């Protein structure tokens, strides 16, 4: 489903990703681990299409299509979803309004009819319960005054609502206590399915106790330096990243 080949990405003329190659099939969950500054967030942003991130070499193919040629909103409509590390606040826009606007924007791009307020509300309520997202949260302005855990739960709620084909989770575990982490992980696990691919980006092995990946890739200095099964996470936890990073340098 996702095929990244020899990807080089620069930000402000500085090369961050330097020849990254990665392939994920539908139904699989892959994890990207790596130290700070290895290019993890850059990878998530280039996939979602953030301005200021420039591909200088290589390619990203999503469902047989050149992903870089698509505008960010078109990627969302085609099923790419990024759960952000730092969800932003939009004052004055209620969470419910935002969800409705986003959902219908995606639907419209796919040529599907809009859902009315009642339809969206039903859909949101059905998904919100499991993630413990309350009605009161939906009435508040988007992410304004939300705790770290509430923000992340809302990200996963959006993932459940938009039903993406490729979900990228950028450090979803950061800033979460163990209960919140478990809740979020449960939410993610119920979304695992044969037609959906997931890319879980994390600094710590902890998250992978709850979201068990099919494959782990270690990112250091802009490229994949090690790959393995879920046991690789435990090894990293024990030995740290240093020995891998040294090899690249």
């Amino acid at each position: 489903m996702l095929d990244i080949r020899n990807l080089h990405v620069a930000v402000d003329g500085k090369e961050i990703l330097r020849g990254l190659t990665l392939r994920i099939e539908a139904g699989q969950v892959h994890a990207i681990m790596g130290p700070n500054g290895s290019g993890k967030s850059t990878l998530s942003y280039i996939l979602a299409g953030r301005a200021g991130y420039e591909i200088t070499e290589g390619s990203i193919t999503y469902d047989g299509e050149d992903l870089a040629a698509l505008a960010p909103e078109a990627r969302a409509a085609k099923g790419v979803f990024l759960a952000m590390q730092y969800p932003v606040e939009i004052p004055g826009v209620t969470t419910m309004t935002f969800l409705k606007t986003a959902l219908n924007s995606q639907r419209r791009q796919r040529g599907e009819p809009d859902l009315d307020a009642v339809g969206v509300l039903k859909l949101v309520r059905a998904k919100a319960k499991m993630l413990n997202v309350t009605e009161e949260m939906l009435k508040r302005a988007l992410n304004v005054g939300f705790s770290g855990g509430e923000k992340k739960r809302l990200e996963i709620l959006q993932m459940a609502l938009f039903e993406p084909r490729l979900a990228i989770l950028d450090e979803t575990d950061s800033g979460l206590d163990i209960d919140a982490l478990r809740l979020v992980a449960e939410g993610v696990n119920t979304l695992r399915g044969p037609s959906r691919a997931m890319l879980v980006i994390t600094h710590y092995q902890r998250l992978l106790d709850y979201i068990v990946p099919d494959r782990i890739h270690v990112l250091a200095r802009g490229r994949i330096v090690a790959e393995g099964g879920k046991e690789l996470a435990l090894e990293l936890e024990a030995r740290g990243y240093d020995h891998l990073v040294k090899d690249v340098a």
Partner: protein
Amino acid sequence: MSIAAETKAHVAEIGEKYKYGFVTDIEMERAPKGLSEDTVRYISAKKGEPDWMLEWRLGAFRRWLSMKEPDWARVQYPKIDYQDAYYYAAPKNTPKKQSLDEVDPKLLETYKKLGIPLHEQMALAGVAVDAVFDSVSVATTFKEKLNEAGVIFCPISEAIRDYPDLVKKYLGTVVPVTDNYFATLNSAVFSDGTFVFVPKGVRCPMELSTYFRINASETGQFERTLIIADEGAYVSYLEGCTAPKRDENQLHAAVVELVALDDAEIKYSTVQNWYPGDENGLGGIFNFVTKRGDCRGRKSKISWTQVETGSAITWKYPSCILRGEGSVGEFYSIAIANNFQQADTGTKMIHLGANTRSRIISKGISAGRAQNTYRGLVSVYGKANNARNHTQCDSLLIDGDCGAHTVPYIESRNPPARIEHEATTSQIAEDQLFYCLARGIPQDEAVSLIVNGFCREVLQQLPMEFAVEAQKLVGISLEGSVG
């Protein structure tokens, strides 16, 4: 459909940014070009006015000749040649309509294009509409129902003929003839406008609304609105404004006077969308407006809500004189300036009586190369014991070389008075935009969504049926403002 999406669909549908830019081809009757005593006499005669009204106008005109155009606002514009404009233009053969069926179908078509199907509104919205086309009022709906309640809602020209005592008693008592250059000019040449009188203890059974439309070229529009809420009365009034696209600048100098007696409340809302000029700053309306409300009675309340998206130049300070003890003044404003628009707008809250309170919430949005200034005065007089004011002034900058300025004046002659002023300036953050895009919301919709969120506290003050319209307008005004 979400607001942002509706905005988008709306814009796509009309295929241009200013959808009110059309001209109605209709035969006009005009006063000779230029401004003189003869012009004033011509207008007065056209309206069939009594002598006292003509004298009032002439007095204003003579006064105006000795006045100087004010230059203290942060706006720049070429000198206005007052002799190079028409001061009266009216669609031929339209006045004196008994019912809508008699109104020129072309006019009704125009209003339909503006989104005000009069017939439909009569049936559905329960909104009484008075429509002023260039200089005359062409149709007033819902008269009967209002008559039953004892509410007078009619063109001011009619009120001068039919209710001279009321007009004489209140006209010019809030904005005196001598008030300022543009108000004095208006007093001399005002052509029409709206008159509302809500009698003692009556809650006006519906929203009242006037749509102002400038259609003729080289014509100034000078409407005059007078609203009186007698003791214990309540009225909510909304005005909407549009004009065709033209390369020339057109002058609009209106005067609005509100009078609230004991325990009365007036809610006055404006959605102003005069033609703002094109992307290069060519054309657009010069909007020099004097709006003032007098809380004359005890515990009276006047609330101004404005959504200002149009005009090349906006010079406008809807104000409240808080004379009655315990009276309340409110000002809620959204001012959007894009491209080369210049807005200098704000309010004055004059606390004269004890226990008076005022609240100001101003949201200024600047994009392109526009300049947006909030100018406000809070003045507390010596007898205004226990007066309170809260002012919140937020500016949002969108891309480009725009500017936001805040000029608050605070005067207190009563030391215990409580006056609070808060101000913020922010930008639409790149991460906010990216967040929306990544969730599938296209850029223009994202901007509209974020700006509508920024304005929410003010939009909430608008009557429901107009809030939706205003939200759309906010989106349309900022189309393409983020490059």
